[in-house]
């Protein structure tokens, strides 16, 4: 059926692969780290788990060095177009490694792990593998690669979500996540198969060219698009593909919630951007006519629904983690806003928003963990009076929440500013989107402020004092640093913004 490749071709393939490996060092390094962690876990069984966490932290930090080295490399395809290396991918490599590190740090402070599980075992290894998966998601340029990396992320996420095996909520979350995730990815891969059928291609760039050149059956395209969107939407947690997220976020160990809400969502965003920017042929003038489906409207609907739904339903939450889960749905909506603009400024805004979201959301979850360590609860009512007993935690959480609302002088404000700037740079075209974004962020103020309201405006029922509630020196320093950064980048955001702009170039297309 197929022609076997000749020797020369095989030589060429080997040479190409070897060459590609040179562009693949961070991923390889991380894989080594992953295996190392498993080995350490086996060898150092029974010892204190700090060894694992420190190794992970150092290992991830080391990755940053390799990623940094890739800055010098030119943008290009690897492994026969399966994989790309460009500034955009690099951004996400940094991003995921950083969020991995933050997740590790946050885990180290979380006392729930000591209560729930005997050994941290493969936990850190799984985090590393999730980071690998996410990095690959952001770098994939081929349907196959997309599918593989997404499943890698999903599988590790399932396990991590259910990591507290004896905890009902954690296990339930894992089950829900698994079922929902499996169906979503099943649909997506079915959609992939339809796209493959239409274009005979799996490479995004080639798909785009094929679609533009040959046209296709619109009905099939609609189905394919919707199936693919279901898969990506599930990763992003955008309405109406968000249903898994509140339950999973609530049930999962808090560091994993943070990782899912930030990194996994970012990976979805990266994938969406690459898919939307590259695979959908934008340069065909009448593409809306022949496509029968326009992504543009679709994403707008998704975005608006997410912003409204997330913010409105969050009003009713009494569990802080669940509240933040709904808030993360809303933030998915904000992220989508600037993707819709589909230009350089929009890309920059998205990337900037992700960075700010990393800072503030991880910060918020970190404080939530510290508070849960002391109070053993994530319920809103149990936050009463914490402003007095845990002053730094209270202040930090307030700053993070203010940043999530998008008020100056925090980085969250600049994020919103960039998004709305991107929208308004197109004149009045997207004004209504900006208006919805603005209105919903006012709504969000109410539920975010419920937390400071409980912490500061109400007195706690029990007589706990500041001494017994002290979260420890390291935690205080870390919170302070995150709080400082949130404000600092709110006032002097040029470095982040420049970085986001520098990273807003995707291989294969030019954005204007």
């Amino acid at each position, binding site marked *: 059926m197929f022609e076997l490749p000749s020797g020369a071709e095989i030589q060429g393939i080997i040479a190409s692969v070897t060459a590609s490996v040179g562009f693949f060092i961070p991923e390889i390094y991380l894989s080594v780290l992953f295996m190392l962690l498993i080995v350490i876990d086996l060898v150092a069984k029974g010892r204190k788990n700090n060894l694992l966490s420190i190794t992970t932290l150092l290992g991830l930090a080391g990755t940053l060095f390799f990623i940094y080295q890739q800055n010098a490399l030119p943008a290009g395809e690897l492994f026969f177009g399966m994989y790309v290396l460009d500034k955009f991918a690099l951004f996400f490599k940094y991003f995921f490694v950083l969020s991995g590190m933050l997740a590790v740090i946050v885990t180290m402070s979380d006392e729930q792990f000591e209560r729930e599980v005997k050994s941290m075992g493969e936990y850190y290894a799984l985090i590393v593998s999730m980071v690998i998966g996410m990095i690959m998601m952001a770098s994939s340029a081929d349907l196959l690669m997309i599918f593989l990396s997404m499943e890698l992320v999903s599988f590790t996420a399932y396990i991590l979500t259910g990591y507290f095996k004896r905890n009902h909520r954690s296990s339930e979350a894992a089950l829900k996540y698994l079922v929902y995730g499996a169906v979503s990815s099943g649909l997506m891969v079915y959609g992939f198969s339809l796209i493959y059928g239409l274009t005979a291609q799996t490479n995004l760039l080639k798909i785009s060219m094929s679609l533009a050149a040959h046209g296709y059956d619109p009905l099939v395209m609609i189905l394919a698009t919707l199936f693919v969107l279901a898969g990506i939407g599930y990763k992003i947690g955008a309405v109406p593909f968000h249903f898994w997220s509140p339950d999973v976020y609530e049930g999962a160990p808090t560091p994993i919630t943070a990782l899912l809400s930030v990194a996994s969502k970012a990976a979805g965003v990266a994938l969406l951007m690459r898919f939307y920017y590259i695979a959908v042929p934008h340069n065909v003038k009448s593409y809306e006519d022949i496509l029968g489906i326009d992504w543009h409207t679709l994403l707008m609907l998704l975005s608006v629904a997410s912003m409204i739904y997330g913010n409105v339903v969050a009003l009713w939450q009494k569990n802080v983690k669940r509240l933040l889960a709904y808030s993360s749905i809303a933030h998915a909506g904000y992220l989508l806003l600037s993707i819709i603009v589909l230009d350089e400024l929009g890309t920059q805004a998205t990337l900037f928003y992700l960075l700010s979201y990393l800072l503030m959301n991880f910060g918020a979850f970190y404080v939530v963990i510290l508070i849960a360590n002391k109070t053993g609860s994530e319920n809103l009512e149990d936050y009463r009076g914490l402003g007095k007993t845990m002053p730094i935690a209270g202040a930090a959480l*307030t700053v993070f929440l203010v940043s999530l609302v998008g*008020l*100056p*002088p925090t980085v969250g404000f600049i994020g919103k500013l960039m998004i709305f700037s991107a929208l308004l740079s197109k004149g009045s075209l997207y*004004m209504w989107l900006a208006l919805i974004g603005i209105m919903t962020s*006012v709504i969000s103020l109410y539920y975010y402020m419920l937390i400071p309201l409980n912490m500061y405006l109400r007195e706690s029922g029990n007589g706990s004092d500041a001494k017994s509630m002290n979260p420890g020196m390291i935690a205080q320093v870390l919170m302070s640093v995150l709080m400082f950064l949130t404000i600092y980048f709110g*006032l002097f955001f040029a470095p982040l913004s*420049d970085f986001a702009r520098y990273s807003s170039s995707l291989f294969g297309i030019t954005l204007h």
Partner: protein
Amino acid sequence: MLSLIVFLPIIAGLVILAVPSSQKQIIRIVSLLAALAQGVLAVLMWRGYNPALPGITAGANGSALGSFQFVEKLPWISLNLGSFGSLNIEYFIGVDGLSVTMVILTALISAIGVLSSWTIQKQVKGYFILYNLLASAMMGCFVALDFFLFYVFWEIMLLPMYFLIGIWGGPNREYAAIKFFLYTLFGSVFMLLVMIGLYFSVLDPVTHNHTFSLVAMASQENYIKDAILGPDNVMWRYIAFIVLFIGFAIKVPMFPFHTWLPDAHVEAPTPISVILAGVLLKLGTYGMLRINFPLFPEVFHASMYVIGIFGAINIIYGAFCALAQKDLKKMVAYSSISHMGYVLLGLAAGNSEGMTGALYQMFNHGTITAMLFLLVGVIYDRAHTRQIEKFGGLASYMPVYAGIVTVAWFASLGLPGLSGFISEAFVFVGAFSSVTTRYIAMVSVLGIVFGAAYLLWSLQRMFLGKRRADAAYDLEIGEDGHEHIHFHDWKGKIDLDGRELAMLVPLVIITIFLGIYPMPVIGMLTSSINKLVQVLTPVVLTSMN
């Protein structure tokens, strides 16, 4: 120097951060020193201010600084945005006639607020940190000449205010605090959109980059014709104007966006009420003068009538609502609404007399209402109630207090010889002289009568006559055979004590002095206002030719 004025309170806040929370007196003194130093600097600035320079827009020679004074302009953020050129945000502050008096007012009210905060006992450290943050933000708003900077200061005010009302407020404080927060945020987020729209519509005349500079934005020739808020986009310019106006009107507060104010005032502790009424409300009208009107002069011109009507509604509606109040503080809060209506009416007149009146009224309302709230606080501290019918005959027992109340009340009702009169008079003079608002002015004068009605009535019920049967205090026959008043758990002096006098007497003196000789304030306004009126007179936009 201007930066120092703005950031002194924040520096004080940082110092306080380092002071252990048990050292309440040190914390208070640090705040007081900062406020006083700020006041001294403000006075120095006032002395050094040249009233001949108008400000408002760029100077005649096209200098981007305009004829602003005490200008400090530093690059703050500079970003390359590719096809959108470079994003330049500047730390650009300075004063002109519109802001210089407000700076002085802010410094004055901040210092008085610190004195008034002396009685705060709960979480003193946190209180003063937030207080100082608020003071800095307010000052920053008045001097910012970069829209971005303005917006940052504007929003920074919200959070401290939320906590100051929410933690140190009255029984219903949570509700009042979140209401204040939501309302004002609702107003300001739309401002964000307009700000972005303006950014894309305006080019700096010198660098030809997009800019946030309010000075550049105030000159219509800097607008890109077909940009979203450029002269061609009439509809969006109207929408932007309305949106901005509502944002500022919420702060003023203008009917029907005023309902947060009575709640916030009733729940807020005295010093916060003072700040709120004395300075924060002015930010609304200041924003209109600085941003809303000069940036959209043709829209302003078209909407003068509507603004005037809202002003009249504020005046009369506020007065009527005040008349019906049983809680003294609520009455004063509604009187604020009524008095801010004069400011709106003066602005709507769009001529020099009206605008002068409006700006002068902003200053006077700041001092007079601060006085009113301080006085309400004095009686509340003693009697723990503000219900008007729980008092009666106080004039016999607290003569000094009654005397100052009389001055304040009459200042509020616009008695000549006290500063409030001149500003109200000029508002009416301006509004009547403008054909647009003539009939509105004729209706609004009713406010003079009803203003007098509720103030005199409350004065009578609380201070005149004799003690009522259910009064919040007892009478005792003293050793000298005279009746003395006795509050249930008040240990301090019955009549005003030294600290209270130190807050009130300067305000009384200012009120009287400026009522007799207003030029120290008006003299600083006139050139700016005349220039502003010129800017606002309808310009024929290039596209309309």
